[in-house]
């Protein structure tokens, strides 16, 4: 079944901000959204950790908490590799996606951030979606937001909002940090009129 993945503006920019907050590390996160037929809409994302080799305990804990809160609308995993020239699929992300597929009993999708396309003047889609086909992961179509969204993204990056983003690891370091980033999302919507 060929999925058609549409990432809304808010999760799209949160993913990019998560990559920018830890430029020299691989990042990981969960995707929230809903599925209708072969169309998957990603409405939110939760940054989990910022190391290319996340260990089982934080991943299990975070997925359990997020699953407890969002239930079946947990649709997949996003990740980015540390080395910009390395575009291979990260095996920890694949393992997590498979586990989500078993738990939510519906095929999970995998979104990879293409580091080399993050440069400001690139107009290609920064995110590439994959779906499980048999036991290998195939690339699927993604709906791209278009250039006005990119301009909004640039203003957010200029304001260095990525420093306010908190992922689950930051939460574990200091429980005051909210890894659902509710305050940041409101700010994003307000500043860059991103439809949430």
């Amino acid at each position, binding site marked *: 079944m060929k999925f058609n993945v549409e990432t809304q503006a808010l999760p799209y920019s949160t993913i990019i901000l998560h*990559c920018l907050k830890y*430029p020299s590390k691989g990042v990981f996160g969960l995707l929230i959204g809903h599925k209708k037929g072969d169309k998957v809409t990603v409405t939110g994302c939760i940054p989990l950790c910022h190391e290319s080799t996340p260990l089982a305990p934080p991943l299990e804990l975070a997925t359990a908490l997020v699953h407890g809160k969002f239930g079946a609308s947990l649709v997949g995993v996003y990740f980015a590799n540390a080395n*910009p020239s390395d575009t291979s699929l990260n095996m920890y992300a694949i393992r997590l996606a498979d586990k989500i597929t078993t738990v939510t009993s519906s095929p999970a999708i995998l979104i990879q951030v293409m580091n*080399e396309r993050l440069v400001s003047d690139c107009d290609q889609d920064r995110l590439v979606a994959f779906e499980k086909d048999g036991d290998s992961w195939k690339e699927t179509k993604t709906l791209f937001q278009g250039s006005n969204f990119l301009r909004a993204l640039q203003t957010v990056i200029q304001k260095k909002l990525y420093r306010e983003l908190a992922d689950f690891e930051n939460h574990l*370091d200091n429980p005051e940090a909210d890894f659902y980033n509710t305050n940041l999302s409101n700010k994003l919507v307000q500043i860059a009129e991103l439809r949430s």
Partner: protein
Amino acid sequence: MASTIYRLITIVSLLSLIHCAYSAAQHRFYLRLTEQPFVSLPADVVAQTVISLVALIYGTSYLANPFQYIKKDQHHDRTCDEALNCPSFITFENRSKAMSPEFAMLRTLKQQQRQRQTSSRKETHSGRVSETIHSSESTDSQE
């Protein structure tokens, strides 16, 4: 509530201890006035000193905050990133490099150079010759 009681006990026992010291000095001064040899302190002063000492120890032992594990972790306030970070092995192949304009120009230069090689390899059809060109060219581009 409880800690105020212990604080009270500590203060009272401290005061009574000072009072004992004062009365002991007073006793010595009295002995010297009446030129009597100093033998020992009067029983009540000794008793009061011992009791107030015990009360003081009892009070302060409750006021002191709970015992800590002897070997404290010296940099316990470090976050996980700081503790597990290896600064001497820092590498610079990261996202900020991929996004910076200067390196974008460097990268396009490398891509053109790679395309030239693949096209040159097709023309000469002899892998070995182009391999030597490739290796020599790559060393030049490194200079």
